């Protein structure tokens, strides 16, 4: 029995076969994600740093913040305040304070916190850093310098 073959059917079959072939032969391109640690340094410029609040926002790169840890100075050893909803996002606010005496507070540049991030290797990561508040003892506002630096891989 001879089968009739309309042009439309032929076209559908050709296109369908082409799509299937393309899917099978296409090179599997998958973005490689990488993990990194960024250290937040604050230089209170010879003033005892008692409190800070910083907003960190990834301005480029596909970045996800995955965890936060405290700093190196005893006054800021504990993890800073942050909202859990910031995890898996690209923006976070960190805040911490210490009520110890001025002598026990850092006056030079110190690492106050670190953030662990996951990002796409193919894209360059860039952060916007904004100081929202900082104070010395008795709550007097100060203007420290901020730095967010990627920790060297061990």
């Amino acid at each position: 029995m001879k089968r009739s073959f309309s042009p439309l059917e032929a076209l559908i079959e050709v296109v369908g076969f082409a799509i299937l072939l393309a899917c099978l032969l296409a090179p599997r391109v998958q973005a490689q994600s990488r993990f990194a640690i960024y250290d937040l340094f604050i230089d209170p410029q010879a003033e005892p740093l008692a409190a800070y609040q910083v907003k960190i926002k990834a301005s480029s790169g596909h970045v996800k913040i995955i965890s936060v840890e405290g700093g190196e100075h005893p006054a800021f050893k504990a993890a800073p305040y942050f909202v859990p909803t910031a995890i898996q996002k690209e923006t976070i606010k960190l805040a911490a304070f210490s009520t110890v005496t001025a002598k026990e507070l850092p006056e030079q540049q110190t690492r106050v916190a670190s953030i662990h991030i996951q990002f796409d290797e193919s894209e360059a990561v860039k952060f916007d850093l904004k100081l929202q508040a900082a104070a010395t003892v008795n709550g007097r506002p100060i203007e420290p310098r901020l730095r967010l630096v990627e920790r060297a891989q061990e």
Partner: protein
Amino acid sequence: MNEDNKNFEEKLGKAIRQLAKETIFVPPAKDDEIVGGIRKRFDRQFLNKKKEKIPAKKIVRVSRWQRWIPLAASILVAASILYFSRPASSRSVADVNGDGKVDVLDAFALANQLKSGASVSADVNGDGVVDEKDVREIAARAVRLEEGDRS
């Protein structure tokens, strides 16, 4: 005599009936004269009465901006009502240092006050006591992300 009277009555009756059928022509000039005279008289009387009883109204000229005075006064009164009917303190309880915003410095200020034993009134979590939990609550509010921060 009786017959004369009878004729006279008949003639009179006829004449009266005839009179009712006829239209009496009054010249328009005369008509106008009469109506004008009545009107003049009536007006004079009416005006005299008016002058006697109703004192003339004093016309006060109102400038354009003066017309808005009642509206402005109403707005002022409404604003005053709103202003004075609001709660005595609209400032957030969490704004401990009173700088108009809630940030880590408020948590720090409250922590310092608690440490020094000063009297504090920032019961932020509303549990009836001001303690370390209130400090943590303020700090949590300070690091909260606004709608625009999330992505």
